[in-house]
């Protein structure tokens, strides 16, 4: 499976929000815990709608939660 170019800081944000559990976040955004786990691990890039819902939970903009990394940025970092 190709590694996603979208990274996120959901784990940190959960921790900073009264140590919110994955299940609590999943319930708030209407997905299963498995999906939250997959997003946190970078195994799944959520739909735009779900990304907005996650950002709303933390009262942030989508860009503050998710970051898109260009491929050339990765190559530069690797060299």
């Amino acid at each position, binding site marked *: *499976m190709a590694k996603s170019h979208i990274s996120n800081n959901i784990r940190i944000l959960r921790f900073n929000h009264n140590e919110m559990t994955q299940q609590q976040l999943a319930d708030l955004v209407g997905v*299963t815990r*498995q999906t939250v786990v997959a997003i946190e691990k*970078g*195994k799944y890039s959520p739909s735009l709608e779900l990304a907005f819902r996650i950002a709303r939970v933390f009262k942030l903009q989508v860009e503050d939660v998710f970051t898109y990394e260009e491929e050339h940025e990765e190559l530069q970092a690797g060299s």
Partner: protein
Amino acid sequence: MSYQEKKNIVSPLSAIVVFGVYSWNVVLRYIDMNPQGMELFRFWGAAILILIPVSMVARLLIEIIFIIINRIVTKEVAPSFADELDKIIELKAMRISYFVFILGFLLAMGSLVFQMALSSMFIIMFVSGFIADVAGISWRLYLYRKGV
């Protein structure tokens, strides 16, 4: 291990058990009846048609037993809905399943072209349905573990 992963480990096992037991019964009936001509068509038609409800009911029962055991052991509640990740994985698994079945179908047609016994064509179709099912479930498990 998540609920979905555990469920996708139980599913192929139940598919193998149900298909194995049913196939064994079909083989015994085939040897017993030794159908010829039109009777052969009727026999395989019935075997494939009956497999569908039998398989559905048996696997539903196994899934219910799994849910109960899983609940008792882990106290984990089964998700009551399929979210966007579940739907994407389901679609990808279905695509693999169809692809495998089409291969089986082509093989079955090939057996007719090469003038093999008529039963061979039905057996290939019968088995390819099972392999397609297991391939779909296995792919689903792979996607849940590795990501989409």
